[in-house]
């Protein structure tokens, strides 16, 4: 079998610059988790449905299992690890805790990134807009009620 082709990429993740050589076929989520050891972004499916791997790429919400790492060459990436930058939970994270918006917490990093993207676009979303805004993220524990409340509280 032919060796897999390799490529070098440079990305900015949460304000830090990384240069890595990798398999051209490597998914962005595997690059983030396995090569950069940023394991906060999770993998919950293999079809782009669950959203556990959601990150922001140049400000756009992306399911990082649906993108090749080489496609992110030169991009600015934000992951859950960048939210509590100064060691304190940010407003959205705190609202998730205050409203019991997480149980097992596996979907939470993706949910937080999705909500971050939503709140940047829409400063005061309605319940309906929140529900549609996070419909790419599956949570199996909470039934979503408290997630919706947390995002609404964070918006205020």
């Amino acid at each position, binding site marked *: *079998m032919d*060796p*897999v082709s390799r490529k070098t990429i440079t990305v900015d993740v949460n304000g830090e610059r990384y240069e890595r050589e990798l*398999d051209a*076929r490597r998914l962005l989520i*595997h690059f983030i*988790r*396995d090569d950069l050891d*940023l*394991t*906060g*972004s*999770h*993998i*919950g*499916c*293999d*079809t782009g*449905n*669950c959203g*556990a791997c959601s990150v922001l790429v140049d400000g756009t919400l992306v399911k990082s299992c649906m993108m090749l790492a080489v496609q992110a060459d030169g991009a600015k990436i934000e*992951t*859950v*690890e960048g*939210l*509590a930058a100064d060691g304190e*939970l940010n407003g959205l*994270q705190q609202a*998730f*805790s*205050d409203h*019991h918006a*997480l*149980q*097992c*917490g*596996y*979907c*939470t*990093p993706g949910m*937080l990134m999705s909500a971050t993207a939503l709140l940047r676009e829409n400063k005061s979303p309605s*319940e309906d807009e*929140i*529900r*549609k805004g*996070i*419909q*790419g*993220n*599956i*949570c*199996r*524990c*909470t*039934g*979503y*009620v*408290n*997630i*919706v409340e947390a995002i609404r509280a964070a918006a205020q």
Partner: protein
Amino acid sequence: MATITELEVGRVVGAPLDRKEDAALLTGQAKFVDDMSLPGMVWMAVVRSPYAHARIAMVNVDGALAHRGVIAAFSGDELADEWQASLPCAWLPTEDTAQPNHRPLAVDEARYVGDGVAVVIAESRSEARDAAELVQIDYDPLPTVIDAEKALEDGSPLVHEEFGTNRCYTWNLATGEVDEEFAKADVTVKERYRQQRLIPNAIEPRGVIVQPFPATGELTMWSSTQVPHIARVTLSMVTGVPEAKLRVVAPAVGGGFGSKLNVYAEEALALVLARRLGRPIKWIEQRSEGYQSTTHGRDQIQEIELAATSEGKIRAVRAKLTVNFGAYLQLVTAGTPLLGAWLYSGAYDVAAYDFECTGVFTNTTPTDAYRGAGRPEATYAIERAVDALARKLGKDPLEIRRLNFLREFPATIASGLTVDSGDYDAHLDAALEILDHDDIRRQQSERRERGDTKQVGIGFSTYLEMCGLAPSRVLGAIRYGAGGWDAATIRFLPTGTVQVLIGTSPHGQSHVTTFSQIVAERLGIPYDDVEVLHGDTAVAPLGMDTYGSRSLTVGGVAAYHAAERIIDKARKIAAHQLEVGEDELEYENGTFSGNGNSLTTKELALQAWTAHNLPDGMEPGLEASFVYDPPNFSWPSGTHIAVVEVDTETGDVDLIRYVAVDDVGSVINPRVVEGQIHGGVAQGIAQALWEEAVYDEDGNLVTGSMMNYMVPSAAELPSYELGRTETPSPTNPLGVKGVGETGTIASTAAVMNAVVDALVPFGVTDLDMPATPERVWRALEEART
């Protein structure tokens, strides 16, 4: 929201405290299995059968072995000598239960799509997966059977030739004069319902890492499991690794819902291959792989009959289940439907009872526990049948329910168990008030009169559940292989902080928070001074793990009793040092006072550690353990009400309101309790309206990934309106009843009764889950013609 600073120390039970679990999960610092790697670690990939039933004629792993990065590859045959026992089935309900030998890799025959046939070990995840595709396997396809009822017919293909039948067992439970009651009944109803197959979809796929220590023969396994303790016992039997040399750790676990209440082939494979190769091995399930290889839930045909008087008093219940077990018995496959066996008379006072369950092998993924396990099925059947009875008698379904409610507690139910407490009118009244029942009924009548396209339906579920698994003696009587107790150890450290080691193993249920509240309150120490450790057999060796809404009602009570033992010992030290009699000491909020002096538990912990001045003969240290075996199950109950709008032209069902009033006994943390109800209700609504695992006739899982199995998002689900009533359980000192399964147990019946209620004027009463637009539309079309 209350925070700890607002609360008096020692007054934290019942407060909606912030969860201790949250910070790590919110920042991405929590470590799930896939977040861990070890030096020298290699990856495992499993080659799975694409046939539902086939003879394995030949397996050739040479192609895989030649691939870059591959370290080893084995067929099932080559590993057959590794297994000391079948993968475990802990519950064989009858003496003649057919138990197939379930090897971690199939030998000779594959029996469902996804059955493991070969395994590849390589340096990286991608190399393992690439090489898995190079394993050559010749299959001779065999006839396949998918449907449980067809599998019982003469001449059906046999899943396990050696049994001569696909019947796994038939189990009965009968009390009272059932036939007589049916013979003299004014009215009877006979209904047939289908519990479709479900895929649990814990959002973290399964995963396992095994680290071998070749010099000593010790092995440590990290697994995404609900049951590290059960896994340790049973995997020791499967692999021959001495139990004392096997440590099992459940790190952060991303949901389970029963699908991780199991001991799986990949855990056994990773153990024996790590032992064989001397290197750490990691396996992480892909979601669509998991759809085939992680247990499914439900999949039953239910026949239920009620015998009643003309007023609507139910005299007898007959229930008969045919349950699709899939190809093998996983840990509690065979017992799962029986967890509902006592509950087909619901919350009602019934004289006679007859339950029969037949389990059946088919060429499908094994079924096993899924949130509620047996009890959602029971509740669904009785609650729908009660509505059918009300329709037949032309009575209000609430009138029938109230006429039949158990009212005097303790109450012995028809199936013979004793319900300790409850007040069913109270939660029904509370739910009706939240709903504004009269107003909704008026809206419904108006729409019916106008002949609106969109009709309203209102559905009730006044459920009783049996949780808190379980009294060990009862488990023994029904041939379950283990006990139902749980354990806790409380250890005061010299500086006054406390470790609580618990035998239950959370995966989202907030045990760290809840158990901290129980122990902080009882010992009178700050909530933040309590650390709860769990999910590691080396740290907390005694435990029976987490399922069946048992963690609080069994493990939480164990923690309470351990705290009482701490207090007893601390009291002895305090009496000795304050020179007063033990019974002259008052204990409140962690402080012993007497003779004008006082000592706190924290001060006594240091005294116990220095051991300079202890009563004669007392062991130093302040540590206590308790193993609690519950005297009874716990009996939560409640009323759930669904209001739906059904589009009679398209069949679309819109759930517009959902009211849930639950009595889960005393509450330790109301926010955690609400969260559990929200999540359970969402899963039940999803069963009622959307979810279904579908096989084609050849045994291919048509709903093979999240692309075509509908797990609902926030956009599909409504908000829920919650209320709570409280009858503390008299059987445990905390008064708790458990809340993990309430939502799924109650909700499917409420939603389906609502859909049927909307469709009754069109002549539709026979409708199965999920009530998808297509199914509703077809039912309406059939009724019109």
